[in-house]
C-alpha cells in the first residue's frame, strides 16, 4: 500500500551560528533533520537506526548489528556488490558505516550538487539490501579479519581487555574469544531477521548537513521513503552490570616492546547528571598539554609517555579511562604515582583555575568540532537516537559550564574509589620483572 507521507511536525531549532536546522517527522515515523551550512561545497548524509552492538544484542548474537552493517552496502535489488561504493566514489564522495552501542549508522559525504543522487543510493541500501548468501559467507571472513586485528595493536588490546575486566555481566565485557564464537555462529537467517525487525522508518533518523535547501531535501526524502512501512519494535536489551565491589587486575604478555598500562574507574552512562563532572575530572587529570598527569608523571618524574585520561560514557554505562606507556623498570613507580595523583584530586579537589581552564577547553573544542559537517551530523544523529533530542550535544557546553568545584569533589569521591577500579598491564613477552596480579592489588591497596 502506498503510504501517504505527510509532514507531522516541523520544528525549527536554534543550534548556534546563523545556520538553519529543521526537523521533520514523516508519518511512517522516519525522522529527518536538515542543517543548512551555506558556504561549503559538500553535504554529509548520515542514516542511523536505533539498534547497535552489545546493548541490543543477546549474548549469543553479539556482533550481529556490526555484521548487518557490513552487509548493507553489499548489494540491493538494483545494485550489485561494489556498485554502491563505486557510484559514491565516482562523485568524489566517500561512504562508510559504523556500529556503536547506541546505534548503527551509514554515512556519505558528497559534493553538494550530488545530494539527491546520494540520498537515492542511501535509501536503496537502507530499504532494499538483499543479503546474498555468498556475500554473507564471504563477509563473515572479512569481519573475522577485523575482529582478530583488534588484538594486534597494543592500545586496542588494552582497551578491549580492560572492558572485559570492568564488565563481567554486560555485553560490553564479552571476552574477545566469545565474541569470535558468537560471530562465527551467526547465519544469514539471523541477519535478515535482524534487518527486517529493526530497519524500519520508525526506528530511523536521517541527518543531512551541508549546502542544501531543507525543503527540497524534505521533498526528496518523502518521495524516496514513501513505501517504507513502519512496524512495532520491541528492543532486546542485554543484562546490566551490577555495581563493582572490589578492585580488578589482569596482567597480559605479548609481542611488544614497551609496557602499556590501562586503568578504568567505573563511571556513568551518557546523559547521567554526573557525566559532565567526570568529563572535567578526566580532562584535568590527563586531557590537555598542562594536565596533572602530564606535568607530574611525564614531565617531572619522567615515568611514562603518551599519558591520557578520558571519560567514555556509553549508552548503558561508562568508564573513566587512563592509559600510558612505560618501561619495564618503571611500571611500579609509574602506577603508584598515577594513583597518588588521582587520590590527591579526590582528597583535595581541583582549583578554580583548573576548572575554568578545563571548561574553556571543552567549549573551544566543541566550537571547533562544528567546523566539520561530519561532526555536526554525528552529534545530531547520536543525540536524536539516544535521547530523542537533536540538540543534546549542543546543550553539553552549558551543562559543563554549570559544574561547580564542590560537585567535582563530590563526584571524584563517589567514583574514584578502589572498589571501582580495574587495571590491565600489558608486558612484552620477554619481560623479566613482571608485577603479578597480587602485587598490583597490593600496590593499589597501599597507595589508594
Amino acid at each position, binding site marked *: 500500500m502506498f503510504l501517504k507521507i505527510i509532514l507531522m511536525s516541523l520544528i525549527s531549532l536554534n543550534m548556534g551560528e546563523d545556520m538553519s536546522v529543521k526537523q521533520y517527522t514523516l508519518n511512517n515515523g522516519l525522522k529527518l533533520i536538515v542543517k543548512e551550512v551555506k558556504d561549503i*561545497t559538500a553535504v554529509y548524509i548520515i542514516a542511523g537506526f536505533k539498534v547497535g552492538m552489545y546493548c541490543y544484542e543477546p549474548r549469543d548474537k553479539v556482533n550481529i548489528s556490526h555484521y548487518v552493517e557490513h552487509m548493507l552496502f553489499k548489494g540491493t535489488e538494483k545494485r550489485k556488490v561494489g556498485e554502491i561504493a563505486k557510484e559514491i566514489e565516482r562523485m568524489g564522495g566517500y561512504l562508510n558505516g559504523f556500529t556503536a552501542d547506541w546505534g548503527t549508522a551509514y554515512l556519505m559525504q558528497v559534493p553538494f550538487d550530488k545530494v539527491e543522487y546520494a540520498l537515492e543510493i542511501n535509501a536503496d541500501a537502507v530499504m532494499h539490501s538483499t543479503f546474498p548468501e555468498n556475500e554473507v559467507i564471504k563477509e563473515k571472513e572479512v*569481519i573475522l579479519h577485523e575482529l582478530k586485528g583488534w588484538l594486534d595493536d597494543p592500545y586496542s588490546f588494552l582497551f578491549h581487555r580492560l572492558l572485559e575486566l570492568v564488565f563481567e555481566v554486560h555485553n560490553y565485557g564479552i571476552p574477545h574469544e566469545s565474541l569470535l564464537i558468537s560471530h562465527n555462529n551467526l547465519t544469514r537467517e539471523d541477519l535478515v531477521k535482524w534487518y527486517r525487525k529493526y530497519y524500519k522508518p520508525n526506528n530511523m533518523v536521517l541527518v543531512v548537513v551541508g549546502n542544501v535547501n531543507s525543503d527540497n531535501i524534505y521533498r526528496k526524502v518523502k518521495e524516496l521513503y514513501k513505501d517504507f512501512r513502519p512496524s512495532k519494535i520491541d528492543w532486546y536489551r542485554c543484562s546490566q552490570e551490577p555495581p563493582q565491589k572490589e578492585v580488578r587486575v589482569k596482567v597480559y604478555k605479548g609481542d611488544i616492546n614497551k609496557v602499556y598500562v590501562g586503568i578504568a574507574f567505573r563511571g556513568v552512562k551518557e546523559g547521567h547528571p554526573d557525566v559532565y563532572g567526570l568529563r572535567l575530572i578526566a580532562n584535568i587529570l590527563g586531557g590537555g598539554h598542562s594536565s596533572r598527569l602530564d606535568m607530574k608523571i611525564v614531565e617531572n618524574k619522567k615515568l611514562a609517555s603518551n599519558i591520557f585520561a578520558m571519560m567514555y560514557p556509553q549508552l548503558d554505562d561508562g568508564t573513566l579511562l587512563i592509559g600510558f606507556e612505560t618501561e619495564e623498570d618503571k611500571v611500579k613507580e609509574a602506577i603508584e604515582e598515577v594513583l597518588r595523583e588521582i587520590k590527591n584530586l579526590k582528597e583535595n579537589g581541583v582549583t578554580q583555575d583548573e576548572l575554568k581552564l578545563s571548561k574553556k*577547553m571543552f567549549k573551544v573544542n566543541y566550537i571547533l568540532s562544528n567546523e566539520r559537517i561530519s561532526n555536526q551530523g554525528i552529534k545530531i544523529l547520536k543525540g536524536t537516537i539516544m535521547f530523542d533530542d537533536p540538540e543534546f550535544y549542543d546543550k553539553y557546553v552549558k551543562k559543563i559550564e554549570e559544574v561547580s568545584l564542590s560537585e567535582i569533589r563530590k563526584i571524584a569521591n563517589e567514583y574514584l574509589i578502589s572498589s571501582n577500579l580495574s587495571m590491565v598491564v600489558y608486558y612484552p613477552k620477554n619481560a623479566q620483572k613482571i608485577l603479578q596480579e597480587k602485587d598490583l592489588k597490593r600496590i593499589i591497596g597501599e597507595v589508594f
Partner: protein
Amino acid sequence: MLWRLVFMSILSFQPNVRKIILKNGLKILLYERTSYPTVYIGVFAYGGSFYETEENNGITFLTLRVMTKATKNADYKQISKKLDKLGGNFSYSSESYYVSLHMNVLSEDLEEAIELLSDIIKNPTFPEDEIKKEKEKQISDIKSMIDNPYEMMFLNLAKAIYGNWGYGLSDYGKIENIKKFTRSDLVNWHKKIFCAKNMLIVIVGDFDGKSLVSLLKKKFEDIPSGDVLKPVKFSQNSFPREVVIERNYNQTYLGLGFRVMDLNSSDYLPFMIFSKAVSGMGRRFFVELRDKKHLAYAVWNLYRANPLAGYFGVYIATFPEKEKEAVEGILEILKNLKENGLTQKEFEDAKTQYEGEIKTFLVNNRNFGITFALGELYGFGWDWKFKMIDKVRELKLEDVNSVLKKYLKVDDYKLGIVRGKSR
C-alpha cells in the same frame, strides 16, 4: 579555459586568497572564511627525512619537540598552560618533505595564538633538561611505532623501495641517533629550518585581514631570511626486494609496491588519475581482494609523491596463511592493469572523482589551509589543485594506460611485511 572560471564552476565561489611576502622573504597566505568564529594557523617549512641522512635521521622531529617546550619568555609549564587556554588544539609533525605546526583557535584568541607561535618559532632556548626529556620521549615513540603493525609495514615497504633515503627513513629516526644529538645540533637545525625563506605561514578563518597583516609583520618580519633548505640527494644502491619482521600477531600486514615518478614529472597527472581509479571501496583492489576473495578487512592503495620522489603500493592485512594468495592476488590485478589498462568507465569515473573530491575535501579551515600550503611548498602555487582541473579534463585514457606500462613493475616489485603467526 581560465582556471578561475573552472574554480567558480567547481566551488561556486572563488576563494580570495591573499599572498603576502614579508621583507625577510617569509610567505604568508591569508584566506577569510566567516562561517565559524574560528581560525586555523599553519606554519610550514621544508624539513624532515628528505633533508636528513641515515646518520642524523630524527633530528627534525626532535628539534620540533624541544623548541615547543621552552622559549625566552616561557618554560614548558607556561607554554602548556597557554596552549590549553587556547583550547589545546596544537600539534606538530614532520612529514618527510616538510614540517608543520598547526593551531585551531577561536577568532577571539587569534592574537594570543600568533604571539605564542611566534615565540615558539623565534625564541626557543633548547635547555639541556628539556632535550634529555624529549630524547627519552622520542625513543619511547620509536618503540611504540615498532609495536604498531601498520606503521612498521609502511616503513618496511618504503625501505624496500628507497633504502635509507627520504621515505625510507622514519620521521622519529633511530634510537642511536637520538641518543647522540647535542644541544648545538638542535640549535643549528632549528636555524636552518625556521628561517624566513624556508617557511610559509597560512591562516584561514574568521579574522580581520588588515589588523592581522600588521600583527604578522610585527611578529615575523624579524626572523632571519636564511635560505631554502636543500634536500639530500638520492644515491641508488641495491635494496632488498623485501623488508620483513615477524611478530606473534593474528594477521600479516603486507605492502607491495614500487618507485614511481615525482610530482614534477609529466607522468604524475595520469598516474594520479590511475591511482584514483583503483582506490576506494568500489574499485579493483578492494572489490577483488576483499569483496570477491575475502582475503582481508583492510585493503587500500598507498600512493605518496612530492617534488623529489614517489611510490605506489597496495596494502592488505590478511591471515598469515593467506600471505601468498594475497601477493598473487595483488600481482594479478597489477598485471591486468599493465596489459589492458584502465577501462574507459574507470578512467571517466576517476576524472569526475577528482573534481568531486575538491568539493568534499574543502569543507573546513584546516583543509583549505593545508591544500594552499602544500601547493606553495611544492612550487606550484596555492591554487595548484584548481589549476590541475583543466589538465585532468584534457587527459585521455591512452595517456594513463601508457604510463601504467612504464611504471607498474610487476616483475620487480618490493614488499614490506609485518608477518603474523599462522594458527
